[in-house]
């Protein structure tokens, strides 16, 4: 090992990503070479930064902060650091970027061929650099700059297909909301500087008063909550994720939302240090609402990527629930609960990156093959796209938190965190934990339903349109990339112990005063016991039982299957012989019972016009149903309407267009400032 350090690996990764961006621009005229070169450089860079992150995670000491180069602007230093928390998220990023870049090698040429591949690759490389900088920034102003860079670059990506009106709206909503949120972040950083005197991410904030800490906490929640997609700041997400190109949606959902989680953990937990119980309660309630409403809305969508977007809101809600439980336990003095809550939420972020990345890549594959994202027009794709079908099925099983995939283990840990947090002392808070359990159960069941709908309607049954009939399997690069992520989901689901040990070290950094946590790190296959009771981490017994019973059953039935092979016939359907594809359930119809039951949430609109001479002899029925987001209608629309009307009135009163009036404003303001200067020494 000739001096391969984590620092060196991180710097070389950054350099390689930049090289990938430049190479993509250089090879603008030869798209094949450009795309391949750019993505391969990205893959190599991911391996580098992943290795660097692993070195930090498995070693004892974190990578100390260091300065890249100093800018002429005072206070802003391009200084990077990688302690265990950053390294964990960088590892997450490395894994996902590797797979997404491999995917993009097959995807980009088929989809971006109308526009410039070169510019796309350039933006892509810079986007990843900004993500890395956000995760490893040591200076809060540099963090802010990287954050803005990330937002602007992803805006360009979301607006890539802005010739469609809906994408234009998506991009506009996105940039406005994320910019507003970033303003809150900047205010919080400046307040931190004002009270701690340093711009470092590790600044010691113990000198701050409680009121200031409260305000800074709220600003951080608004800023990071918007990027993460937590209710009520989530409204941009269901528009922006579908509008972006396939591999970018995967990257945004898998990594960009995690930067927000990283921000909350870094600044609220590590830096500010949970002051009061209501902080944790707020995190828990926001997470719970996002989880339940996110999964409910996911279930009623008919657009594949919008379903996945709402499902992302759901899962990030679960992550925030874990964070909230951890915070509340910490203030209640329950160290075990705090520890398990933090580990559960970080683990769920990691798992979410893996399975959501895989799901968005599958959705992009379906969109490429069938030219549509509307579930009402798809169906029967498993016959023509079996591999993508299997990958989507595995991704769906992961999200629905089913054995043997990784989603189950992290959701199980979240349940255990709630369980550990419910102590006899905190009687008032137990109601909140009760609601949390009920909410988590409901969101689990709704997630199962949503992914049954996604897999069943898109891949099973008969094709509902000509486009679905003509779909064919996508290129091998796309399958292999998707398969890598899915395989990792399965592996982490069956052997979660290594990742949990890594995360435990991070949580131990956070809660060092933990006398009763004997994290026995025996062998890699042995379950880690958190508490002194007999709870185990991995559902190994269940997986073993499942697989062995399956094997034995199949072996027992095999001789019978040879004697009596299956006979193929038409679908029985209680004897009706002429089934057409339109007679199967549509995506809209599948979610109708839930829409009716939860109509207070969905407020469905229904318009039915019957054409024909007589109502009893209809010639045709026109049925239109729509459900809209009540947060958007009741919270944001009035606000935007007020802003617009105020702006209109301002235009007629203040911004009249008369130069003389503007000169008068300048003169008046100068007078005011001179008087202020004179009065205040």
């Amino acid at each position, binding site marked *: 090992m000739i001096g391969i350090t984590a620092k060196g690996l991180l710097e070389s990764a950054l350099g390689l990503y930049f090289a990938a961006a430049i190479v993509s621009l250089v090879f603008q005229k030869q798209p094949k070479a450009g795309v391949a070169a750019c993505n391969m450089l990205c893959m190599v860079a991911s391996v580098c930064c992943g290795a660097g992150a692993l070195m930090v995670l498995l070693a004892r000491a974190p990578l100390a902060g260091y300065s890249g180069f100093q800018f002429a602007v005072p206070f802003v230093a391009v200084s990077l650091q990688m302690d265990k928390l950053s390294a964990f998220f960088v590892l997450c990023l490395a894994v996902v970027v590797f797979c997404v870049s491999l995917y993009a090698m097959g995807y980009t040429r088929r989809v971006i061929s109308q526009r410039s591949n070169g510019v796309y690759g350039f933006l892509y490389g810079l986007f990843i650099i900004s993500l890395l900088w956000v995760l490893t920034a040591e200076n809060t102003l540099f963090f802010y700059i990287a954050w803005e860079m990330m937002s602007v670059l992803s805006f360009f990506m979301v607006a890539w297909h802005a010739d469609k009106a809906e994408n234009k709206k998506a991009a506009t909503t996105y940039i406005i909301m994320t910019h507003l949120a970033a303003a809150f972040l900047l205010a919080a950083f400046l307040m931190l500087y004002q009270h701690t005197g340093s711009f470092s991410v590790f600044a010691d904030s113990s000198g701050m008063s409680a009121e200031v800490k409260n305000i800074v906490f709220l600003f951080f929640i608004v800023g990071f909550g918007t990027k993460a997609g937590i209710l009520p700041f989530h409204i941009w997400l269901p528009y922006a994720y579908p509008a972006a190109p396939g591999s970018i949606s995967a990257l945004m959902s898998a990594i960009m939302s995690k930067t927000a989680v990283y921000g909350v953990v870094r600044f609220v937990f590590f830096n500010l240090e949970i002051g009061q119980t209501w902080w944790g309660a707020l995190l828990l309630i926001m997470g719970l609402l996002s989880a339940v409403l996110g999964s409910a809305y996911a279930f009623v969508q008919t657009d594949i990527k919008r379903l996945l977007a709402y499902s992302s809101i759901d899962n990030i809600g679960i992550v925030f629930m874990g964070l909230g439980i951890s915070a509340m336990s910490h203030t209640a003095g329950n160290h075990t609960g705090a520890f398990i809550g933090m580990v559960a939420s970080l683990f769920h972020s990691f798992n979410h990156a893996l399975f959501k990345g895989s799901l968005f890549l599958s959705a992009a594959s379906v969109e490429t093959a069938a030219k549509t994202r509307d579930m009402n027009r798809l169906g029967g794709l498993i016959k023509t796209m079996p591999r993508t079908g299997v990958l989507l099925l595995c991704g769906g099983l992961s999200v629905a938190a089913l054995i043997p995939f990784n989603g189950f283990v992290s959701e199980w840990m979240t349940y255990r965190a709630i369980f550990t947090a*419910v102590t006899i002392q905190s*009687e008032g808070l137990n109601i909140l934990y009760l609601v949390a359990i009920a909410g988590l159960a409901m969101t689990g069941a709704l997630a*199962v339903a949503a992914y*049954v709908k996604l897999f*069943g309607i898109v891949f099973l049954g008969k094709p509902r349109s000509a486009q679905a009939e003509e779909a064919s399997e996508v290129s091998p690069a796309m399958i292999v990339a998707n398969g890598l992520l899915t395989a990792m989901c399965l592996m982490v689901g069956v052997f979660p112990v290594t990742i949990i040990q890594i995360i435990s070290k991070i949580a131990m950094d956070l809660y060092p005063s933990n006398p009763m946590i004997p994290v026995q790190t025996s062998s890699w296959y042995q379950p880690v016991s958190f508490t002194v*009771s007999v709870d185990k981490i991995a559902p190994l*017994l269940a997986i073993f039982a499942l697989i062995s019973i399956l094997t034995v059953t199949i072996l027992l039935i095999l001789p019978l299957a040879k004697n009596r092979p299956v006979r193929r016939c038409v679908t029985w359907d209680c004897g009706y012989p002429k089934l057409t594809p339109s007679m199967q359930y549509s995506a809209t119809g599948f979610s109708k019972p839930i829409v009716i039951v939860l109509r207070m949430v969905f407020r469905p609109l229904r318009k039915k016009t019957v054409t024909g001479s007589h109502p009893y002899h209809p010639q045709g029925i026109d049925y239109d149903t729509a459900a809209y987001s009540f947060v958007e209608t009741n919270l944001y629309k009035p606000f935007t309407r007020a802003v617009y009307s105020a702006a209109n009135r301002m235009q007629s009163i203040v911004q009249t267009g008369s130069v003389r009036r503007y000169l008068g404003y300048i003169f008046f303001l100068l007078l005011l400032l001179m008087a202020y200067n004179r009065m205040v020494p």
Partner: protein
Amino acid sequence: MALQIVYLPLQLAILLTMAPLINGIIKKIKAFTQKRKGPPLLQQYYDFIKLWHKTPVVSKTTSAFFLMTPYVVFAASLAAGLLVPAYYAIAPDNFPADAIVMVSLLALGRFFMMAAALDPASAFGGMGSSREAMISALIEPSILVCLFTAGIASGSTDIPLIFSAAAMGKISLLTPFGFVTFLAIFTAFFAETARIPVDDPATHLELTMVHEAMVLEYSGRHLLLMEYGAAIKQLILLMLMAGLFLPFGFYSMAVALLVFPLKILLLAVLVAIAEVATVKLRLFSVPNLAAIAFIMSVLGFLQFFMSGESHG
């Protein structure tokens, strides 16, 4: 220790042999109240043997997923059953049988069943699936809150530990919270096993099908596996209720051997009486039933903290 090696085969034997008997008992009681003789007690066994020998007819529209589902449903139910010990005395030490793992295994079976119903491209399958989605989304919170209450009362979500806490008297039908939690689980039982008042297991009418709609296209050995899986799931829930609320003969193996079938029989009779006493609800009245179950489970949870149990 020697007894613990017997656990696995004994548990498997109980699950596989007793599961079809429950349906027979319930049908006999229903017939008795309707002044009929009803099918023989062992009818379900005869049905299973018949199905074993029949050739399965599978729709051309379906894929390998449809053929895979019966095996997954059966294996998931049986694996979940292994986690709910019938006889605690022979359950191995440090047996990692978490309640949430059990619920998740049953959910795995449900996922496959719901998705495979969409494969034959018939209207019935989608109908069953969408109704099941609605019902399960509304019932899962009640079940999990009840399990959590039981877990908090016993200090762990491990099922053998919960059963031993019940035997020690920490969870008892005589206490308010125990009684209310029992009512909540009992109400949720009908939704999970597709019985009246949520779903009618004896009919194939469009108005009244949820579970039956999902298994409509299966035949032969596939239908056998699906029905067996459903029967085992029913038995698991009965065993759970028996272990939680009727923990007699817990420590001694001899007494337990005698008493366990009686417990299951008693609960099956209760289920049958409840089925006979109610009618099948209109589909959109099922949320009301789910709300009742949820409120009862919440009451059980709150009652546990209000009463002296939590401090005892």
